[in-house]
């Protein structure tokens, strides 16, 4: 059968890299085709070419056997191609209907025919079981529904080839299942789906075929049923990947972090954390498992002095730091903090790398020299860390926003671990990272733990918590619900408690 999409010998060069190097890519009609690769492997570039956002330096594109030249996304949309981007393109103060009709507004005489649009959208939503309220404002709806609204937008515009750019990155495990259902339903209705991901599990779960990219080249295209995760990982990374992290027996030392009966409120003044008691000792990794929005954000904030506690006591490194300044958590408490949102809290994107490497260290030796900052030392230090942590893609003079997500996260991890901390607070340290970078971060955490550091790991990925932690604590609606020994705990048990069930 003629493939619905055929991309032949696609070459795309950026100044420092060749993002796509003679890529051949074919998708059959009505399949879910995964595009697998690490960050920076060229997946998104390839799809941006298909979607008309970029042109290519060499190569040809055929849609339904016909050669096409896209000047922009509008040409691609005309050919029935649609894309759900990682970051949604919805206007928060508009309703879903208003968002969907934007650019193709139905009119009745001189006025907008919202009624008609709403009816059409409701009908589509029902047909594809998307369960969307067309009158809801985007700012009021959940991330999952926003994503479904994006899918609906493609359907409304008549797209039958859909590109999903890492759609699961923002979803909870339950929501991922719902998305799978929708994708399968779309497939049954004759739509073709290209699914960009770097998660092996997702490839195995949903796809019919998978194309693996590495360093801008296609490694292979295979039937999903004929492969397995470790084969895929090897294709993707180019070497064997350890899924199980080796954890030697360690000595547990004295307590570094102690929380006693801590209460705190969230941004809106509502109780976010209640009766928290926690002890993390030297050499111990304590994992906080939970579904997003159950107080994890507030927990990291009170442990870094960014949020005040209403009641209770926080002792770190033997010092009472309750409601003290953030600076003291670092200087007195000797913490290191890997924030979940590296773009917002971890880095200054408009600063060059060497200024990012010393962020927070600027008042410490050897960088502080009286009132001056020793930028020569800062550059030496940065060069050293770039080398040690294998941060690629740029030199230390270039701005942080020129790096890929994985390398940005490496900067944050490198900088924080370099503090020689007593306590490491790692909040979703591998969010958005590919297999290689994730493996690296995990190894670093284990290494630090072996060196006797206390580690609090907060993550939405249960597998990550199960893999790394010694003890696992479940957080649900701002309370610690239960504690498990990582050796003996089962995923089902923990999962149930994360959802609010189980023993309390």
């Amino acid at each position, binding site marked *: 059968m003629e493939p619905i999409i055929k991309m032949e010998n696609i070459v795309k060069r950026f100044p420092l890299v060749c993002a796509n190097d003679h890529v051949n890519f074919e998708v059959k009609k009505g399949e879910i085709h995964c595009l697998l690769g690490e960050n920076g492997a060229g997946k998104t570039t390839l799809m941006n070419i298909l979607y008309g956002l*970029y*042109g290519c*330096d060499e190569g040809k594109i055929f849609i339904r056997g016909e050669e096409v030249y896209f000047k922009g996304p509008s040409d691609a949309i005309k050919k029935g191609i649609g894309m759900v981007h990682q970051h949604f393109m919805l206007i928060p103060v508009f309703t879903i209907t208003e968002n969907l009709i934007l650019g193709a507004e139905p009119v009745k005489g001189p006025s907008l025919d919202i009624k008609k649009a709403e009816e059409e959208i409701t009908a589509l939503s029902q047909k594809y079981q998307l369960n969307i309220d067309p009158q809801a404002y985007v700012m009021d709806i959940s991330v999952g529904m926003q994503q479904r609204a994006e899918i609906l937008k493609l359907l409304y515009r008549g797209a039958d080839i859909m590109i999903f750019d890492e759609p699961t990155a923002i979803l909870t495990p339950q929501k991922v299942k719902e998305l799978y259902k929708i994708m399968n339903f779309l497939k049954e209705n004759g739509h073709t789906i290209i699914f960009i991901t770097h998660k092996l599990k997702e490839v195995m779960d949903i796809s019919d075929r998978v194309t693996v990219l590495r360093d801008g080249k296609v490694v292979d295209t295979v039937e999903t049923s004929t492969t397995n995760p470790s084969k895929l990982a090897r294709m993707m990374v180019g070497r064997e990947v350890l899924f199980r992290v080796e954890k030697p027996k360690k000595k547990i030392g004295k307590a570094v972090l102690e929380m006693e009966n801590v209460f705190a409120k969230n941004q809106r003044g509502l109780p976010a954390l209640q009766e928290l008691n926690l002890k993390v000792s030297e050499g111990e990794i304590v994992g906080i498992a939970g579904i997003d929005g159950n107080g994890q954000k507030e927990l990291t904030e009170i442990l*870094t002095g960014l949020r005040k506690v209403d009641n209770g006591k926080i002792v770190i490194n033997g010092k009472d730091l309750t409601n003290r300044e*953030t600076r003291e*958590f670092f200087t007195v408490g000797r913490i290191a903090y890997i924030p979940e949102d590296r773009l917002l809290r971890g880095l200054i994107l408009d600063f060059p790398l060497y*200024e990012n490497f010393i*962020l927070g260290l600027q008042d410490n030796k050897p960088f502080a020299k009286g009132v001056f900052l020793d930028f020569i030392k800062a550059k030496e230090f940065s060069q050293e860390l770039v080398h040690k942590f294998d941060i690629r893609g740029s030199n230390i003079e270039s701005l942080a926003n020129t790096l890929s997500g994985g390398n940005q996260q490496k900067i944050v991890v490198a900088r924080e671990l370099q503090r020689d901390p007593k306590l490491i607070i790692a909040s979703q340290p591998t969010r958005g990272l590919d297999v290689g970078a994730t493996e690296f971060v995990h190894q670093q955490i284990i290494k630090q733990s072996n060196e006797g550091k206390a580690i609090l790991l907060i993550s939405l990925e249960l597998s990550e918590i199960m893999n790394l932690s010694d003890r696992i604590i479940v957080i649900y609606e701002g309370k610690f619900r239960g504690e498990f020994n990582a050796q003996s705990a089962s995923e089902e048990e923990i999962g149930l408690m994360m959802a609010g069930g189980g023993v309390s």
Partner: protein
Amino acid sequence: MKMEKSNLQQIIFKNKGAFSFIKAFIAIILALILGAIILLLMGNNPIEAYSALVQGAFGSKRCFAETLLSTTPLMFGGLAFALAYRCGLFNIGVEGQIAMGGMAAAFLGYSLTGLPPIIHLPIVLIGAALMGAVWGIGPGFLKARFGVHEVISTIMLNYIAFKITGYMVSVKGPMKSLVDEMPASPRILSSAKIIRIWKGTRLHWGILIAIILAVVVYYILFKTRLGYKIRAVGKNSFAAETVGINVPRHFVIAMMLSGLLGGLAGGVEICGVHYRLLAAFSPGYGFDSIAVALLGMLHPFGIIFSAFLFGILRSGAILMQAMAGVSKDMVQVISAIIIFFMGMSEPLGKYFTERFMRNKDGNIRKDI
């Protein structure tokens, strides 16, 4: 040919600093062209007008001195605005800080007697700087403590400053001179005057102080821990706060330093030019300094040049009015157009560089 182009692309990519300088230059040229068109439409001869402008700014020793004379407060003001802006604050209050600094300088200048110049002048200038700093700390503190937007509070403080200085030299004002008819304070003692640098002109040492301060501000911003933290807060206050930088404190510090420079501008004007406090002695230097700072790319060294440019426009305007019959306001129109093109230079520059940086298939090189 293709090779040459990609080489040039690399050069542009590597020399973004120099490139932004070229961008500013292009903005000025475009503004002058558009200004010429407007002059034509108004029935003036643009060549005549521009040559009068140039003559007015450079035509004689006295003209050139006047150009440098108005460059001085603009340089101080530009530095003041840039310093706050680097911390993410939009200090519209430079004009008020100039007024208050000038008031303090005049008062200390005539009321402290019996001091040698080597002591008197520094006291006067420090007093002016401190007064400006006080005028800057206010909005900084309100922002840090209560989240009051600095644009609102600095605008309001401008009015307060104008009214206070106006009152001081009004008929029954406490600083009103008993000898003069006009609303002015008594003259400052000669021990408080900044001596002149160029015989036969009004140009004084203030310009040198301004240039030295530009270097000092450069060092503060780019070589010290404080400057690093100010820039970090300005670029991403969330990241700054996360690593333990006290964001509100740096708001206060940046506004204080900004006000300090503004106050000093006022002090230097009083001690170097007017020798007494006049109501509204600053003809909008504080507001122009916003444009100076932006045209100077918020960089102290850029500000030296942009202040000079605005100095040229200011002093050239007088002759342009006299010789070519063009209203002085026209110069303000031209400077406004320059600012407009500067604002446009981001999107415009991006448009043209992107076009240039495209490969033959129309791809943009993303690293620009």
